[in-house]
């Protein structure tokens, strides 16, 4: 019973095997992709392994404190090339192996030509509360 974050990147991750920008897919391919993701989430709700999933807008902005009395500095709106997170799914599973299996399954979402995208997903364990027994 450990929580893992499956991170989908717009950029920052290694290039997907079937790497075609989404705006060059056929509309029905996009529908199939979305359906695959929704079905995947629904299945995890059924198994009691789903915690949360959210999509993020493609443009992020870095923000920084710029000293007393001054407005924060931003690097936007035209961000430099940087890691950009597209969205996440949070799962709560019995083992690391199960988390890897699920990430693999999610990575197989269909893309251009109905073929799996083989995109890279980042899998990050949550830091937990210390267990009652550690000594």
């Amino acid at each position, binding site marked *: 019973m450990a929580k893992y974050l499956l991170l989908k990147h717009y950029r920052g991750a290694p290039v997907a095997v079937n790497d075609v920008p989404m705006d060059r897919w056929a509309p029905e391919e996009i529908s199939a992709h979305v359906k695959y993701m929704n079905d995947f989430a629904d299945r995890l709700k059924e198994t009691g392994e789903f915690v949360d999933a959210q999509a993020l807008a493609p443009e992020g902005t870095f923000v920084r404190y710029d000293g007393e009395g001054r407005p924060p500095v931003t690097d936007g709106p035209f961000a430099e090339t940087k890691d950009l997170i597209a969205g996440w799914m949070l799962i*709560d599973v019995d083992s690391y192996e199960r988390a890897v299996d699920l990430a693999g399954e999610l990575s197989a979402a269909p893309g251009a030509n109905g073929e799996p995208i083989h995109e890279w997903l980042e899998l990050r364990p949550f830091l937990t509360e210390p267990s009652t027994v550690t000594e």
Partner: protein
Amino acid sequence: MNDAVLRALVPAVIGVLVRRGADFATAEDAVQDALVEAVRVWPDDPPRDPKGWLVTVAWHRFLDSARAESARRRREELVDGEPEPGPVSSADDTLRLYFLCAHPSLTPSSAVALTLRAVGGLTTRQIARAYLVPEATMAQRVSRAKRTVAAERLVRPGDVATVLRVLYLVFNEGYSGEVDLAAEAIRLTRQLATGIDHPEVAGLLALMLLHQARRAARTTPDGALVPLAEQDRGLWDTRLIAEGVGILQAALARDRLGEYQAQAAVAALHADAPTAEETDWPQIVEWYDELALLTESPVVRLNRAVAVGEADGPRVGLAALAELDETLPRYTAVAAHLHERDGDPALAARLYAEAAHKASSLAERDHLTRQAARLNQR
């Protein structure tokens, strides 16, 4: 009547319904409904026989839940077949429920969820909060678990080890939500121990009590970890220690050693030392040797290396550590500790930082980072 007393009645009540012919899933739902009713009605109109009251209300709920024509026929048969009133052993019903909820066909998380709900009497919402998952997720876990065991008959008790493993999982989850899972695990293990005479049940109960006794000293008020050697022993709960040691001694006297008894023996030796320096490390090493024979756990061998380092000096500890797999969780933290004691603060600082990087809990990571920072200050 407080919440804990009410919850303690749950497994026996489910057991009665199941023995009368209710299927487990429906019985469990009916008892939850009866509990809700009890919370509403009892403050104004407390029953003389709480368990009898719950059985009656839950049984009616169960019968109500069968509404369709076919179910109605079945209901009439069940009423006909209802056993005559008479003495039954409620401990027996409760035990069967423990074994059912920890059934090997369930995944660990399902077994835990089902145990907390059916044996512990917690609501799905309480369990979900304790595990920091949405209530709908926990509801699915519980209902899937119920479907999985629906086909299992409530027959003779199965494997005690499976039940103990589930209770230990609950205990180790600690106390992040509104329900104190460690306290809940102790309550359930106590209840199990009253119904089943087994040295390992006693061993697990002793182990939990001995760890629970040190709980107040394990963290600072703002949540930072305090290592065993630096804990304020005045904060240890001597009443729980005495109880744990007593239970452990009785169990050990029966000469059927198991892993929980051996772990409890280690915890008892720590609890018994007036100061960290007076800890009986040689005897702790012996118990770890016993544990290594009883389990395949690499964690045991890692803990043994720590104990060897204390008993025979850091060099010997490092030699014991060198025999183990470096990828073990907390391996690097142990190496850092032993190298520091061996007089190599620079190496220790580097290893502490590396261990912090690999830590799986926030409190542990912060603790290890502070250790590295402390050595880097010199």
